[in-house]
Every structure is written in C-alpha cells, then in structure tokens.
C-alpha cells in the first residue's frame, strides 16, 4: 500500500475520531479568521497598532478583545489538535506495535501517521478558513441589512494566509509529539494487553476511600488510572474554558462597558436646544459613530444661532430641568503641539514628543462646572480654574498625538494643554473640549452660546419638553431629545457585540469536542468493566451516572481553572475600567453555568452508547 493510500483509508476507517479532530481544528481556524476579518472590517485595528500610544477608546477595547481571543484560538486549536491526535494514538498504539512487529521500520510508521496528521490539519484549516470568511461576509451583510452602513472592505488575504499558516505550523508541532511518543513504544509493550498508551499509571488512585459512595469511587479511580490522558484533558479543557470565559465574560462586560461609555458620553434624558441647522448638524455628528454621513459646512457663529443668557436662565428654571449646560460649538482645524518628556534612557535629559500634525475637529466651549456629560476620561476633566486646558476625544488623541497628556493642542492660534482624553462618540471622537471663556474670547471676544444642553427628569419628560417648546416659541430655536440617538448608538454597539458573542458558541463547540473525545476514550477503555458491572447487577443508569461523574470531575476541575483564569484576565487586563452591574454578573454566571452543564451533558452520549451494547459482546472483547 502506498504512502498516501494507507493513511487515507485509515482515516476513513476511523470516521468518528477523524471527524472530531477535524471539526475541532476547523472551528478554531474559522473563529480566528472570522474575528480578524470582522474586527478589521469595522474599522478597528488589531491591538498592536495602538501599542505604545494610549490604551483608551472603544477601538482599543474591541481590538484587545479580538487580539486576545485570536491568540487563544490559535493556542486552543493547536492544543485540541494535539489532544485529539494523542487520544487517537492511544487507540492506535497496538497497530503501531503490530506494524513494527511485522517488520515495518519506525520511520515508515511515523511517516504514515504524520501523513494522516497533515491530511487532517490541511483539510481542517482550509475548511476553517472558508467558513471563517463566509461567516465574516454574512455578518457584514447582516449588519448592513439591519440598517448600519458598514462598508465591505477588501478581504485581507495576507491576514488570512498568516492565520492559516500559523494553524498549520502549530498543529503540526503539537500534533507530532504524540505520534513520536507512540512510535517509540516497544512492540512487545504495545502488543501487551496490559499496556495502554498514556492511560495507565499503575496504582489506580488510592486516594479515594470507599466513603464517597460507589459512583464517585469508581469514577475517580477510573480517572486516576488514566492519569496522563486525564491531565491532558484537563489542560486542554481548561484552556478552552479560559477562552470560553473570556469570550462570555469579556464579551458581555465589554458590550455593557462600551454601551456604558457611550451612555455616559452622550448622556441620558438630555434635551438639546439650538437652531434647527445646528441641532440637525449635531445629530449628524453624533451619528458618525455608527453611520458615515456627509455633513454640510456651517457658520456656527452666525448670529441666528446664538442663545441669549436670559433664555438659558429661563430654561434652567423650568421644573424638571436638573441641569443646564450652555456651550459654544465650532468646527475648525486643530494642530498638534509637540511636548517634552524625560528621556527614559537618560533621566536627566528631556526629549521632544510629537510632531506638527493637523486635523479637523469639533471644538466645544464648555463651562466645566455645568458639564452634564460623564465621559470616561484618561487624565482629568476640566475644572473651573482651567483657562487654556483641553480634553480631547480618543480618536484625535490616537491619530494626531504621540503622548497627548504631555502635549498641547493649538485651537484658533492658541495652545491648550491637554488635561485628559475622553471617550466620546461625537464626531467619531474628533472633539476638543475647552473652557467656554477662553474659546469665546478667541473667536469673537465676548461670551456667547449656540447650544444649550438640558438634563431633564425622565418621569416628566413630556411636560418638560412642552414647557421648553413654549419658552423657545417665538425664537428660531428648537428642542431635541437625544434619547433616540442614544438608543441607536447602543443598538449599534449591541449588534456588533452580538456578532462577537457568536464566539462563545465556537469555543463551546470546541470544549464539547474535547470532553466528548476524552469521554469516548475513557468509556472505550472502561467498556469491559462496565460490562462486568452490568453482569453483576448494575443497572444502565448506574453506568451512566459513573460516566457522568467522570465528566463532571474533569469539567469542574477544568472549569474552576478556566473560569478563574478567564475572569481574572478579563477584568484585570482586557477591559479598562469595566462597568460591572448586577446584570453583568448574573449574565456571565448564567452563561458559564449553562456552558458547564452543556459540557457535562455531552458526556451522556458515550455513556448511553456504551450501555446499549450487549453485555456478552462487551465481555467477549479482549
């Protein structure tokens, strides 16, 4: 038989094991490809792009998440492949023994099994790549169908090839190890009925006394007898569950955190008062976050747009208005001003940072003590004593500055020190907040407003709105409630994260495959003993209970490790300043419990399969 025909026939003969391995690797490859393409397409770069700059912004939360999950996916893919190949080899070691006993050279036997590995890896990675690309295209199409204009960027073939290559190499490296181990087993050992590749460790777990009950005792002893395989299963499953936990906990928390950031930045129950041209423009600028729109240029300083101090006072006095925040909003070109920092290599030296980049930004003059927004700010917010200080949006900070908090920004020819960077969806983060007095002085020498932001009582919103309308009637101004636009922001983020939340399904499928494969091995190894137990009077459900208990022990140990590592990583490193509500905790806990229950339940399949076999047939097997 030639070098290809044997491995192909062999794989076909072992459809179930081959299928499990291929599905596992396909899922991991597909998930990584999907994440990378999807993340790149919606405009966020993989995290390294922002490395060395600010660690802020929605893009950062998203790209960190994607990067971490991608790395873990590659690791899980390789580990799962290795584990499944290991399980496969543990069933094949007798075949290896027979091959060697009949004169087959070790390197030829190795070649056969390596060819099998290569067939599995190449086929699965190719299938995973196709599925990943198709899933990405489907998600983009779905987002567009739902009304969010997400442009379809050309597929990044280099990224696809890179991931494909990484999976091929990692799977080969880790998958070859168990083959080498199996080939090294001596033929006499391999053919001995007492030998079991990596599944026997002499003493079958003396730790368990008779006290915990028959089911637990038998299950624990069986796991301990397969120490090596059990250890591998736990490592593999713990890694997969770390990934699952990060996708679930990270996904839910990141989704709620980013939605929280937006809600704090836009504000809830906010009514803006301004000229219709300006309110329309403002809504357009706010919508840039989820929908690219052309906006016409406007003269913000037109006298028609001005809001008088007396109107501000009257509107502030309306019952149900909690806070009034008058602003002067302008659009202009802003310039980066280089700064100096201490040379990290020579602490007594200063080195310049930054350049002289420029960009268009929305400049908002605010009275710091009256600001109603609660942005997530890196650095500090403006205070009443600030004169020439600014808080800039995260996109501006990332795109125009090297080290923003050590630099200044030039607005209307005046330098403003950058006090902080805020997450703000307005004008897609290209915003500069400066003290109103300073801005007014720079543009026309007197204090003036063209927008008024009112925080109102949600329980009286209709009455308050009616009262505001009454007050502004006769002027050219109109009130506009922002809750609807805020809702769109939240929906957009919700939709994006809901696609990312497919990932727990990917990793759950991978985890199920791992456990299922391990349990198949475990049950196959024990089926004779289960036959004996049944012959002695054990009912089928007693056997199912033993198998379920084995799965439960493995799942709980792996789950404890995976969930702990996953949660620690998520909340410590993945999401800056996570917003964790009771709902977040309940959702995360609920999902994780569901995952563990689902995992354990999957073990029922091999258990039910084994009790359906005839006792006599099972006992007659060697």
């Amino acid at each position, binding site marked *: 038989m030639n070098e290809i025909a044997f491995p192909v026939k062999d794989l076909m003969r072992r459809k179930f094991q081959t299928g499990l391995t291929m599905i596992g690797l396909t899922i991991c490859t597909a998930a990584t490809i999907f994440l990378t393409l999807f993340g790149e397409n919606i405009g966020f770069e993989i995290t390294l792009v922002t490395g060395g700059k600010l660690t802020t912004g929605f893009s950062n939360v998203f790209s960190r998440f994607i990067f971490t999950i991608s790395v873990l996916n590659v690791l899980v893919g390789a580990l799962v492949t290795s584990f499944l190949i290991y399980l496969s080899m543990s069933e094949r070691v007798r075949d290896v023994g027979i091959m060697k006993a009949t004169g087959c050279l070790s390197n030829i036997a190795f070649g056969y099994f390596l060819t099998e590995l290569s067939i599995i890896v190449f086929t699965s990675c190719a299938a995973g790549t196709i599925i990943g690309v198709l899933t990405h295209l489907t998600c983009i199409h779905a987002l567009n169908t739902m009304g969010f204009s997400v442009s379809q960027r050309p597929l990044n073939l280099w990224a696809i090839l890179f991931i494909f290559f990484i999976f091929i190499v990692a799977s080969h490296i880790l998958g070859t190890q168990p083959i080498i181990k199996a080939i090294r087993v001596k033929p006499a050992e391999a053919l001995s009925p*007492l030998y079991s590749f990596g599944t026997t460790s002499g003493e079958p777990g003396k730790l368990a006394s008779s006290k915990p009950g028959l089911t637990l005792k038998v299950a624990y002893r069986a796991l301990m007898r397969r120490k090596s395989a059990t250890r591998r299963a736990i490592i593999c499953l713990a890694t997969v569950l770390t990934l699952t936990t990060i996708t679930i906990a990270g996904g839910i928390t990141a989704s709620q955190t980013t939605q929280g950031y937006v809600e704090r930045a836009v504000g809830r129950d906010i009514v803006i008062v301004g000229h219709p041209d300006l309110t329309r423009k403002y809504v357009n600028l706010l919508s840039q976050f989820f929908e690219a729109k052309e906006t016409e240029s406007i003269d913000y300083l037109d006298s028609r747009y001005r809001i008088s101090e007396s109107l501000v006072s009257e509107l502030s006095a309306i019952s149900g208005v909690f806070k009034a925040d008058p602003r002067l909003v302008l659009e202009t070109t802003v310039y980066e001003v280089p700064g100096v920092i201490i040379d990290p290599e020579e602490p007594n030296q200063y080195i310049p940072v930054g350049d002289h980049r420029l960009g268009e930004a929305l400049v908002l003059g605010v009275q710091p003590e009256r600001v109603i927004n609660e942005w997530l700010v890196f650095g500090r917010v403006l205070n009443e004593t600030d004169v020439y200080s600014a808080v800039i949006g995260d996109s501006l900070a990332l795109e125009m500055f090297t080290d923003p908090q050590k630099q200044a920004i030039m607005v209307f020819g005046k330098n403003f020190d950058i006090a902080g960077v805020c997450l703000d969806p307005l004008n897609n983060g290209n915003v500069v907040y400066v003290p109103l007095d300073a801005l007014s002085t720079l543009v026309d020498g007197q204090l003036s407003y063209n927008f008024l932001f009112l925080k109102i009582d949600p329980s009286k919103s209709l009455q308050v709105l009616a009262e505001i309308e009454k007050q502004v009637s006769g002027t050219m101004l109109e009130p506009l409630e922002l809750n609807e636009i805020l809702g769109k922001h939240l929906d957009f983020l919700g939709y994006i994260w809901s696609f990312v939340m497919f990932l727990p399904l990917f990793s759950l499928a991978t985890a199920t495959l791992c456990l299922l494969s391990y349990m198949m091995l475990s049950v196959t190894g024990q089926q004779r*003993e289960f036959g004996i*137990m049944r012959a002695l*009077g054990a*009912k089928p459900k007693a056997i199912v209970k033993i198998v379920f208990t084995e799965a439960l022990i493995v799942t709980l140990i792996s789950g404890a490790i995976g969930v702990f590592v996953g949660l620690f990583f998520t909340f410590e490193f993945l999401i800056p300043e996570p917003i964790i509500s009771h709902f977040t905790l309940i959702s995360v806990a609920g999902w994780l419990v569901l995952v563990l229950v689902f995992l354990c339940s999957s073990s029922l399949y091999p258990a039910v399969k084994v009790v359906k076999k005839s006792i*006599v047939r099972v*006992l007659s097997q060697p």
Partner: protein
Amino acid sequence: MERVVSASSLCKDYQIGSLTIPALRDLNLEVEEGEFVSMYGPSGAGKTTLLNLIGGLDQPTSGEIVVFGHDLSTYDEDFLATFRSAYVGFVFQSYNLISTLTALENVAFPMELAGWSEERVKKRSEKLLRLVGLSHRANHFPAQLSGGEQQRVAFARALANDPPLILVDEPTGNLDVETGLKIVWILEKLKAKGKTIMVATHDERITRLANRTLHLRDGRIVATDE
C-alpha cells in the same frame, strides 16, 4: 424441590456480518434447586452461551428460558440487572474483576449495588475473602494478584449477595493444578451449602462433584451423565 431453570426449544444465533452462527439449537433443560450441573463439550459447543442466557446476560433468539419463575426473554435491562443482583452469582473464565477496585472492594461491589449498609458490606466482604483464603490480599488490586487469587476473589464476589444460583464458566481453565484444587474445594463447599450450581468445565475433578453432567456439541445436549 423448586425448579430453578427451565429451558425449552432454546435457540441462540450470533450474527457476524451477513453470517449467522447458531450457538444453541432447540435446547431443552431443567435444573432443580440444589442441583450441581456440570457442562462438558468442545469449544463452541454452547456452554458459555447457555450460562449467559440462564444468567440473563443475553436474550435467546427463540424459545423460552425461565429462571426462578421469570421468563427472562420478556424483561427489560433494568429488571434483568435486578434479577442478576438478587438471584445469580457469576464466575467468569477470565475472572473479570474490576481493575480499579481492590479485592475487598470487588467483593463488596454487588452488595453496594444492592444497597446494603456500609458496615454489613464490610463485614460480609471480609468474611467471604476469609472463606476463599485471601484476607491478607484484601487491599490489593487485581493486577497485583495471581490468576488463582483473582479467580478466588471472583468466587467471593459471586457469593456476595448470597445468590441461590451460581454460574461458573471454566473456573480452572487458566489455573495450575494446585490452584485448581482450591477452586474445586470452594465448589465442594458451595454444593454442601445447597446452592444450585452450573459449571462449564473440562476438569474431571469438578465433573465428579456434579449430580449431572451435560455433554454439549454444536449447541445441543447430546448426552447426560447422571
């Protein structure tokens, strides 16, 4: 005397691919309470198949097998498990001990399944191991016992729930002469206790103990020695 086993027109075929192999053909048999029946015959004669059918491990292809008044072909797996636990003690040719349990735990296993109290299980397991002369090996795992010792543990386990029917398949087939004698001694003791015993064997020392010896060939009883 109560009739323990009643088989009529019993047939059992095994299907291997498209091939049908008849293991038992139109077999009729009756065994009374307290009888010691040995079965003799070449390999493939149907001895083990008959023991499996009597013990409720397998179902006949046709015919009827009634054990302690229960027609075993009509019951589901749960009932058969309870039946085996209460009525039958098995001793297999290849011992079939549970490798992850110690000798004592193997003996205790059927009692634990039957829901006996922990203390009662412990006492009886120790007593049975003493009976087969293996008290000193109680905490050893099967892999640490010799073939003869494993067979004696299997006997102790078969007696665990004090079943009225003991089915034994080639108990001395894999043992040396001296160890085989110990097994014969155990069977003698069981016979003296009034247990109904059916043994598939080629060992004349055992057939000499039997009230009846059935000669099986090609799935049929071809002769009976009283």
